[in-house]
């Protein structure tokens, strides 16, 4: 509850700081201090210090799972602001408002991670989506940005319509929006429940860009300003996954044998399309967009498996994936040329940046000693734990091997090719934050319990 209220207040504070503060660095500092405060307040709530006790009639419950994910999201956003807050300046003139929108999105993230009622799920998803439409189109003179935001807006509100229809049909059968009372389903669910569940499944698959509904993602991620792509492809995607797994565990857990096969098919399709299409990309930004679809396929494994390892694994995965991808995007923003050739000879001119980027890429590919390896390991273990569909696990391993190809292409360009890539100005803060991110990736790869003990104690 602390973080929910504070993030909304901070959003308003940022809007006013745009009026009162004249210098851009002051606005940036307010945002970073606010973000750090948000993280501290949330960690205090995990250790039992709750500042606001509001009776939500059981519609919102902040359990360990929700609070730990919120902490991961806030920490990632804090690191993201350290890395990229200066680059947000170049997007447009409304500098403070972009931070305000980011805080509003975080407010939505706290809602989607802790809902117990479908009403809160709907509100949370919308509070995340509406600021994202604006951030996508924030580069107003750029046609690609316009196009991406219009496409995202039309398809996003279409999928919201599907979600609402699903909620309405479930309400028709159960007479309640509470997830626990929806879960009291006997062996033969009515047609209304099945139709509502399918509509909710489709709309959530749409929001996380899982396979048959992924077509918007590459275009939107490519068209949006790169700083905001970094935010929406990592933290927001992980948050929607948390909502996805919560929804299907708490509201439809008893129907698992009905939706499990469908989930497995979506997982296979997402892994296949994401990885195979990423191989053929020429632009690193577009490659990362497809790679985020491929990583979504791995996260779908946890929704498919839905057991204790799956929830642990999803937390670890969201941390590993967010840290690594934020780091790569931060380096990418500093490049002038987004193609693979733009990275030629990067290691000679920027050895530190190249080394950290290599660690992030290794983590995304799932090489041991990085967080990405253990995250993928947890996912596969969870999928094996269900005792069904062994082919799904084998297929996922093969696709992880395919992903090595396109991640290593960047490493190859950086270390084994000659060139002189133009790089924008790099500050010491930027370098140090990258080093911290790389250290976190390796640390989580060796001691995952540093993160996961928080889930239990």
């Amino acid at each position, binding site marked *: 509850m602390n973080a929910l209220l504070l993030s909304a207040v901070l959003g308003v504070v940022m809007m006013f700081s745009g009026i009162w503060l004249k210098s851009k660095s002051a606005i940036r500092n307010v945002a970073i201090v606010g973000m750090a405060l948000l993280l501290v307040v949330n960690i205090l709530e995990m250790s039992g210090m709750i500042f606001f006790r509001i009776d939500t009639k059981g519609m919102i419950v902040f359990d360990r799972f929700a609070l730990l994910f919120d902490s991961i999201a806030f920490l990632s956003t804090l690191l993201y602001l350290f890395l990229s807050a200066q680059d947000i300046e170049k997007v447009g003139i409304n500098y403070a408002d972009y931070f305000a929108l980011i805080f509003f999105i975080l407010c939505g993230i706290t809602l989607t991670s802790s809902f117990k009622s479908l*009403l809160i799920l*709907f*509100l949370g998803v*919308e509070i995340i989506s*509406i600021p994202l*439409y*604006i951030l996508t*189109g924030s580069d*107003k*003179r750029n*046609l*690609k940005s*316009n*196009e*991406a*935001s*219009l*496409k995202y*807006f*039309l398809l996003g*509100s*279409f999928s*919201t*319509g599907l979600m*609402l*229809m699903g*909620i*309405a*049909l479930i*309400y*028709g059968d159960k*007479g*309640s*929006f509470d997830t626990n009372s929806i879960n009291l389903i006997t062996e033969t669910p009515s047609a209304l429940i099945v139709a509502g569940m399918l509509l909710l499944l489709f709309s959530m698959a749409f929001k996380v860009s899982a396979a048959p509904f992924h077509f918007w993602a590459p*275009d939107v991620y*490519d*068209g949006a300003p790169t700083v905001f792509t970094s935010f929406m492809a990592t933290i927001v995607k992980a948050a929607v996954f948390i909502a996805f797994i919560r929804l299907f565990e708490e509201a439809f857990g008893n129907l698992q044998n009905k939706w499990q096969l469908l989930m497995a098919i979506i997982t296979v399709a997402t892994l296949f399309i994401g990885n195979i299409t990423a191989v053929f990309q020429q632009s690193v930004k577009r490659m990362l967009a497809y790679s985020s679809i491929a990583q979504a396929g791995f996260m779908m494994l946890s929704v498919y498996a839905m057991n204790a390892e799956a929830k642990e694994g999803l937390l670890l995965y969201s941390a590993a994936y967010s840290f690594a991808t934020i780091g790569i995007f931060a380096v990418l923003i500093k490049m002038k040329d987004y193609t693979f050739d733009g990275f030629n000879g990067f290691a000679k001119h920027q050895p530190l940046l190249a080394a950290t980027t290599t660690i992030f890429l290794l983590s995304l590919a799932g090489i041991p000693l990085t967080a990405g390896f253990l995250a993928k390991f947890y996912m596969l273990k969870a999928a094996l734990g269900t005792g069904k569909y062994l082919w799904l696990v084998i297929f996922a391993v093969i696709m992880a091997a395919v992903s090595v190809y396109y991640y290593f292409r960047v490493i190859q360009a950086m270390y084994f090719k000659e060139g002189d890539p133009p790089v924008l100005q790099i500050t010491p803060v930027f370098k140090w934050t990258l080093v911290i991110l790389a250290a976190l990736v390796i640390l989580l790869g060796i001691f995952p319990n540093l993160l996961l003990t928080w889930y239990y104690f």
Partner: protein
Amino acid sequence: MPINYYIFLSLALFCIGIVGVLTRRNAIIIFMCIEIMLNAVNLLLVAFSKMHHLKNAAINATAGTDGQIFVFFIMVVAAAEVSVGLAIIVMMYRNIHSVDVNFLNRLKH
């Protein structure tokens, strides 16, 4: 009136909205079709709310009211979406002087 009539009416409206979104090319008309979808959901929720109220009023005097409260939330969110969506459409119109979504195919290459 039996609940089936309401269900059929709102499903028909919802399908009109879906078909419109998938076939029309004008961004504003697509947007109106999305609004029809949302309003079909509103109608359905109100009908279900009344149904649950009649069924359970003897046990619980406020049974079924949560469906009607949900409708208000949908209206508020839809209004927020309209304001953002029209701003995006106007922004696109300023740049290309058209609201045709066929334009959206440029990002593919």
